[in-house]
């Protein structure tokens, strides 16, 4: 009490002995690299990862269509209509911003993973994009979510419940 205290973690941080996530190396660890969209808004016509898969040192690749089969869309926490957005960790069908991840490569080293990105053939068809918030609010501009989540059937427990609040539904 009444005395300034020195932080106990500072010695290791000041001597370069901190352990940040990037400092951790595990046996058999692999590295992922992500291919990103050069377009702000485009339809994905096709992503060919066959060449990337054949590069020595590549463990596997992943594209949006596989992600859509393997996972549920991200949970949306916005108020309507933005909560109807259906998106995944890799773009499915369409890209919605420049830099959106469209494919991933896992390889034995980081440089091999990045080399493999260059072997991916991604074909896009650019569509209209909006760069201005006011412009986006005008009728007919592309502010509607591209894919609408389909309403899931109400769980049986919810149907049978004597009281249900809509805030619990997603």
């Amino acid at each position, binding site marked *: 009490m009444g005395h300034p205290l020195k932080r106990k973690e500072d010695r290791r941080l000041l*001597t370069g002995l901190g352990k*940040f996530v990037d*400092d951790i190396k595990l046996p058999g660890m692999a590295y992922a690299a992500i291919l990103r969209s050069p377009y702000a808004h485009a339809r994905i016509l096709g992503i060919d990862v066959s060449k990337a898969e054949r590069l*020595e*040192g590549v463990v596997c690749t992943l594209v949006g269509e596989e992600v859509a089969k393997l996972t549920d869309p991200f949970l949306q926490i916005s108020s309507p209509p933005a909560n109807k957005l259906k998106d995944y960790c890799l773009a499915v069908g369409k890209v919605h911003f420049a830099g959106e991840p469209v494919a991933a490569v896992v390889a034995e080293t980081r440089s091999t993973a990045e*080399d493999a990105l260059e*072997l991916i053939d991604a074909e896009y068809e650019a569509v209209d994009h909006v760069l201005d918030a006011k412009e986006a609010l005008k009728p007919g501009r592309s502010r509607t979510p591209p894919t609408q989540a389909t309403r899931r059937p109400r769980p049986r427990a919810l149907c049978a419940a004597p009281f249900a609040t809509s805030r619990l539904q997603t």
Partner: protein
Amino acid sequence: MKLAKLTPKDDLVRVRCKVNGDAHTGTAEPRTLLVYFLRDVLNLTGTHVGCDTGHCGACTVIMDGKTVKSCMVLAVQAEGANILTVEGLAKGENLHPIQEAFWENHGLQCGYCTPGMLMSSLFLLQRNPNPTDEEIRRGIDGNLCRCTGYVNIVKSVKAAAKKMRGVEVTA
């Protein structure tokens, strides 16, 4: 059929350099950046990669007496060089006065930018033992910190300058 790697094993280059006083030899791809050579080949993970583009300064080391952003230097360029990293500042249990000053003045929070800050501060104080606040700010303007807001870092460098000049520092 498998596609061969862009850099076959035969293309690996041997790099010899002195780091923190010790002679090191390691092999790396010709395109390997110095920071990855230090971190992945020599296992000196105190030097951090913040941006990989030369903006943040987390990877700053002193090479042949001058600060460099080690993500902007190829490992092969360090052939024969004398490099000082954050791991080389303390002498055993005894911290360098700059390290002490950062500790005493809360010059760090998460500690990610700290190694780069320490190296830039050392380079500054070696050339300017009694810098003004403005000179300190200019000296560390290649180093970004997202925690502290820099005020305590400037205070730390100022305190370090006093320590290094042998001036008694209170609190």
